[in-house]
Structures are given as structure tokens and as C-alpha cells.
């Protein structure tokens, strides 16, 4: 093998521009408010000169800083120690080394700026408790590609040397003839936009109404002391039912559509031109308008898989897959890979490719009915709090309104919590833990048993008599917690531990 990248080298020369511009952008963002202030206010010539001079000196300094940072940013591969080495720092020197076997993923990332300049970011995702991701921000396409190839190769060769099983698994699951490709069409994107961030619209209404109300009330309080009289008058003027109803309806509907529009745009930017491709040993994902990311997923890295859909999307045959890969953070959202707009068949294909085993039926558990009571009590707490607060500040003539709102809340919460409770289920099959939850957004979370890291069983003292436990399954991609379920699960816990302990496959 040729020893590519074995000598310390710097990034593409265009990197200077990238560093300079991104630093400049940071400062502009930090002092943006001041800048805008000056522009609007206008300043006298004398001060303007000084400001311009200052800005000029600052830009020259920033340029020097960028050049130094660029020249001191060096990376190479140390083949003798099996590690990737990165040096950087302007005033201090930081030296990072990543052993090959800690490299999780190597992928490209491009921001809009990088696309304009014509460079690529290469990101190295690492595992372990020091888990940081490292990115080399300015590489030419060729360099980036060859470095990615070399790194993936060494990372792989290393793990295959120590773990012979890997080859077998690969042969078992991936047949070249199985290779397939999936693209998201603009139409699907539109469908997604109209259906997926459904609650975002509602959320927007809430925030909007609250902030408007707050501003109005502040204003009124300052303007005149007869605030309550004002409100009463206002209510009287608009209290003809039809008018009030129409007004509210119009406001709600328009804000709802605004919310839909915003989520549509968001989805277009995020998932534009999504391409999912299965190769012989990995799943390649490419997407994004603003930041174009390319990710290559190996089955081994997958720790937790989640399939999400809602009733409307189900009808349209749209499912979203979220994949958590090994990470040091507990936070699932950061290392989660989202693939929206998949059809049922494609979901099955992805599962088939990513999982070593087939899903077979197993034991299904549901939480005890006490969970429903607990959920009701929890939902009742805000109501109680509102009641107490309202009894102090809400004027008498609004009591009817408050109590009607409370009744609506209760009427919504009791069935909602019931359906939520009913939707919750845990299935333990010979090779998987499968948890289902959610009323509107129906989530199915799947863990391969042999990828479990640990199990926690937790019992509050007041459930001792009823023999109920909370169960938590820990994986390197996040935890799965199932509440208040019978002691019967313990047998399955014993099985899960047994399954992990007899296992010799690499789990990461």
C-alpha cells in the first residue's frame, strides 16, 4: 500500500479565504447590532474616519491571523502508530491524535460558503468518552475523496484484522444484486412539508398569540389605568358570537397556513435532492440545499433505529427513519441521521440491510394501568397550578371563560393520555427490543439485542407492593426507557443479558 498522507500537510490554499471569511462573519454577527445602529443613525465624518481606520487595521490583523491559522493547521496519517494526527492553533499548539479503530464515520460536508469557494469539509466522527468530531474544513475534491478513502480503508482494515466475524456478517447481509437507490422527488418533499411538521403550526400560533397578547397588555397598562374597563368594553364590542368566532377562525387558519409554509420551506432546504443508495457494504445518504451532507452508514455503527409516521403520512405511505449511531453524548438528536419520505417497502429494505437478523415475533408487554393514573395526575398538575394562580389574578367576570377552558383541557387530556398509554408497548424478540409509542407521531424504536450496553431496572418504593418496575435499555446511541411494567419482563432481561454475554460480534 502506498503511504498516502503520511507527511504533514496543509489544506487547500483556498482555505485561507474560508478561514478569513468565516472569522469575519463571526465578528460581523457579534457586532451586527452596533453596525446597523451606525448605519441608521449616521455618524459625523470625523468619527467615521476613525471607525474606518479601525476596521481596516482589524481586517489586516484578521487576515494575518487567518494565514497563520491556515499554515499551522496540519494533518497526516501516522501509519506506524495507526493513527490520524492533526495539529492546529495560532497562539498555542493543539495536537490531536485519533487511533484508526476509533474512527466511526468519515463524511463530506459543504456549507454554502464552501460551495462558492469550491472546497469540501471532511468530518471524522469518533467514538469514546472524549468523543469529539474533527473536521478539516478546506480540501479540494480530489484530496477529500482520496483522504476519505484512505481513512475508511485503514479504519476498516484495522477492525477486520482483529475481528474476523465482520466478513461473515457482510457476506450474509449484503448481496451486490440487492443494491438499490432511492430519491426524494419535489412532490414527495411537498407532501412531507404539508404533513410532517403538523404541530409546528399549532406551536407557532401559541407563541404568536402569547407574545402579541403580552405586548398588548403591557401597552394598555401603560396607556391608561382603566385597563379592566377597556377589556370589558372590548369584549362587549366584539362579543357578538358570530363575529368573534369568525375573527378567531380567520386568525387561526391564517397562522396555521403560515406555519405550514414555513415548515415546507424548512423541509425543502433540509432534504432537497435527498439520495439514499445502498452499496455492497454501506448505506450512502446525500441531501441538503444549504449544507450538502454526504453520509456513509455501515450496519455495524447503527445502535438504534426509529421509524416515525403519523396517520396522514401512513395513508400517503411516507415513513421517516431516524438512525442513532454510537456517540459519547446522551443527546440523541445530535448524532441522529434522519431519512424522511420512505415507503413501507423501502423501510423494510433499510431494516434488512442494517440488521444482522430478521425480526421474529416475541413477547409483548404493556405498562400497568397505574401508568394511566400517573399520566392523568401529571397532566392535572398544570391545571391545578393555573387554577390557583387564576383565582388570584383573573377578575370575576372571566371565571366562566377560565372554567370552560379548563373543561376543554380536561376533555382533551383524559382521552389523549389514555391513547398514549394504550399505544405504549414493549416487545422482546429473540434478537431485538422493540418499543412502540405515540398517539399522533407513532414511533417504533428498535434495538438489536447484541448492541445493548447495559440494563437498568428501577423501582420506586411505592411500587414495591405491586411488583412494578421501570426498565431502561442502554445503547451507545441512546437509551430506551419503558415505564411501570410487570415483573414478567425480568425474565426477558435475563435473556437479554444472556444474549449480550454470549455474543462475540463487533457492536460498533
Amino acid at each position, binding site marked *: 500500500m502506498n503511504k498516502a498522507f503520511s507527511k504533514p500537510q496543509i489544506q487547500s490554499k483556498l482555505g485561507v479565504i474560508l478561514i478569513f471569511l468565516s472569522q469575519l462573519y463571526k465578528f460581523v454577527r457579534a457586532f451586527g447590532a452596533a453596525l446597523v445602529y451606525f448605519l441608521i443613525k449616521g455618524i459625523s465624518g470625523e468619527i467615521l474616519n476613525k471607525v474606518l481606520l479601525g476596521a481596516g487595521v482589524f481586517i489586516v490583523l484578521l487576515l494575518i491571523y487567518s494565514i497563520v491559522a491556515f499554515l499551522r493547521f496540519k494533518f497526516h496519517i501516522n501509519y506506524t502508530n495507526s493513527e490520524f494526527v492533526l495539529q492546529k492553533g495560532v497562539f498555542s499548539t493543539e495536537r490531536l491524535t485519533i487511533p484508526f479503530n476509533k474512527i466511526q464515520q468519515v463524511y463530506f460536508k459543504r456549507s454554502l460558503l464552501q460551495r462558492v469557494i469550491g472546497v469540501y469539509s471532511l468530518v471524522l466522527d469518533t467514538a469514546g468518552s472524549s468523543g469529539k468530531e474533527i473536521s478539516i474544513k478546506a480540501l479540494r475534491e480530489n484530496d477529500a475523496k482520496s483522504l476519505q478513502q484512505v481513512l475508511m480503508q485503514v479504519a476498516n482494515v484495522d477492525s477486520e484484522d482483529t475481528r474476523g466475524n465482520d466478513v*461473515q456478517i457482510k457476506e450474509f447481509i449484503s448481496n451486490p444484486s440487492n443494491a438499490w437507490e432511492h430519491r426524494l422527488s419535489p412532490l414527495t418533499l411537498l407532501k412531507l412539508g404539508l404533513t410532517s411538521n403538523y404541530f409546528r403550526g399549532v406551536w407557532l400560533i401559541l407563541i404568536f398569540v402569547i407574545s402579541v397578547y403580552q405586548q398588548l397588555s403591557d401597552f394598555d397598562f401603560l396607556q391608561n389605568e382603566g385597563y379592566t374597563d377597556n377589556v370589558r368594553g372590548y369584549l362587549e364590542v366584539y362579543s357578538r358570537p358570530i363575529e368573534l368566532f369568525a375573527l378567531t377562525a380567520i386568525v387561526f387558519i391564517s397562522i396555521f397556513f403560515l406555519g405550514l409554509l414555513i415548515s415546507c420551506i424548512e423541509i425543502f432546504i433540509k432534504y432537497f435532492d435527498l439520495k439514499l443508495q445502498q452499496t455492497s457494504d454501506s448505506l450512502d445518504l446525500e441531501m441538503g440545499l444549504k449544507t450538502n451532507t454526504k453520509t456513509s452508514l455501515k450496519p455495524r455503527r447503527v445502535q438504534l433505529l426509529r421509524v416515525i409516521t403519523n396517520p396522514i403520512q401512513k395513508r400517503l405511505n411516507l415513513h421517516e427513519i431516524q438512525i442513532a449511531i454510537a456517540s459519547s453524548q*446522551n443527546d440523541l438528536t445530535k448524532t441522529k441521521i434522519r431519512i424522511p419520505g420512505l415507503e413501507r417497502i423501502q423501510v423494510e429494505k433499510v431494516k434488512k440491510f442494517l440488521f444482522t437478523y430478521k425480526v421474529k415475533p416475541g413477547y409483548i408487554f404493556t405498562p400497568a394501568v397505574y401508568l394511566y393514573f400517573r399520566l392523568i395526575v401529571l397532566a392535572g398538575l398544570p391545571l391545578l397550578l393555573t387554577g390557583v394562580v387564576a383565582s388570584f389574578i383573573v377578575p370575576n367576570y372571566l371565571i366562566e371563560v377560565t372554567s370552560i377552558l379548563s373543561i376543554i383541557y380536561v376533555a382533551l387530556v383524559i382521552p389523549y393520555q389514555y391513547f398514549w398509554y394504550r399505544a405504549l408497548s414493549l416487545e422482546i424478540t429473540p434478537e431485538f427490543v422493540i418499543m412502540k409509542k405515540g398517539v399522533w407521531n407513532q414511533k417504533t424504536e428498535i434495538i438489536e439485542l447484541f448492541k445493548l*450496553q*447495559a440494563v*437498568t*431496572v428501577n*423501582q420506586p*418504593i411505592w411500587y414495591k407492593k405491586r411488583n412494578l418496575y421501570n426498565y431502561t435499555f442502554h445503547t451507545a446511541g441512546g*437509551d430506551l426507557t419503558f415505564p411501570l411494567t410487570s415483573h414478567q419482563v425480568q*425474565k426477558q432481561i435475563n435473556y437479554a443479558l444472556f444474549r449480550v454475554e454470549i455474543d462475540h460480534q463487533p457492536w460498533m
Partner: protein
Amino acid sequence: MENQFTNAPVDIDSLPEYQEMTYTPVSIKRMYKVFLVLGIISLLMFVGLYLLREVTEVRGLILGLSIVVILIIGLLYFFQFMFQKNMGYALREHDIAFKRGFLFEKITIIPFNRIQHISTSESMLDKFFKISNLNIFTAGGSGSDIDIPGLSPELAAKLKNKVANHLSDIDE
């Protein structure tokens, strides 16, 4: 390779049960250590109350506060006593379990082949009481890592070696 693979059905009822494990309690010195810390805190609080007595003129304030402080500290002592009673670890051939908690009893079980690394640590107070913590790290994040406090340094080292040996066994 495929010939080596067997897949006999597993009789779930015959599997070893984690519920049946007997837990070894941790050293009582851990409780003494926590009691000492609590003692220092309560001493400081009473000094504070004494100083407050000089400046305040509200009747009954000091008495009321004292009762509240005594109640809280008494409760803390009781909780720590129960913690101590409930805390324990258990080693099996293939995994380690750690039990703790009084109001919320929690048992975490980590198979040896999922341990990332293992270490021992002592704080200043631990050194004074001659006890040691065993820290076991997994890739599952803070939720599945365990810290077993109140072990004698020799025992902690022994456990560490034992678990580490298991780790190297598995790698071979």
C-alpha cells in the same frame, strides 16, 4: 464458518436470574464519610443561625428555622442510612451489577464484554477514610456508567483487575 454456528432454542426459565443475586454491601466507612460531611454542613448552619440571632429581632424566627434545619438534616441522615443499607454490588461470571437507592431502587447490570474501561478514584476525604471508588464506563453514556463507592483500596484494585482480566479474555 457456518458449521460452527449453532442455534439451539433457549429455555428462558432456565437462565440465571439477576433478581437472585446476593449483593455485597459497601464499606460502612462510606456512610461515616457522608455523615462527617453532613455534620460539617449542619455545624455551619447552626453557626449561621447563631450569628443571625444577634441581628434579627423577629420573635420565634430562630426557633422555627432551627426546627426546620434539624428536620432536614435528620431526614438527610436517615436517607443516607437507608442508602447505605440498600447499596451493594454483585459479580457474576459474565457481568457486574450495582444496586443503589432507597426511594428509587435502581439496579444497573453491565456485561463484561460491554465495558469500555475501568478505573479507581479517591477524593481527599476518601483518602482520609481509606476508601476508594470503582468507576466502570460503557459506551452507553452516563446513564449506564456506574461508580461504586466505599470499597477498600485493595478490594477496588482487586475488582478492577478481575474485571480487566475478563475484558482481555473476551478480546482473545
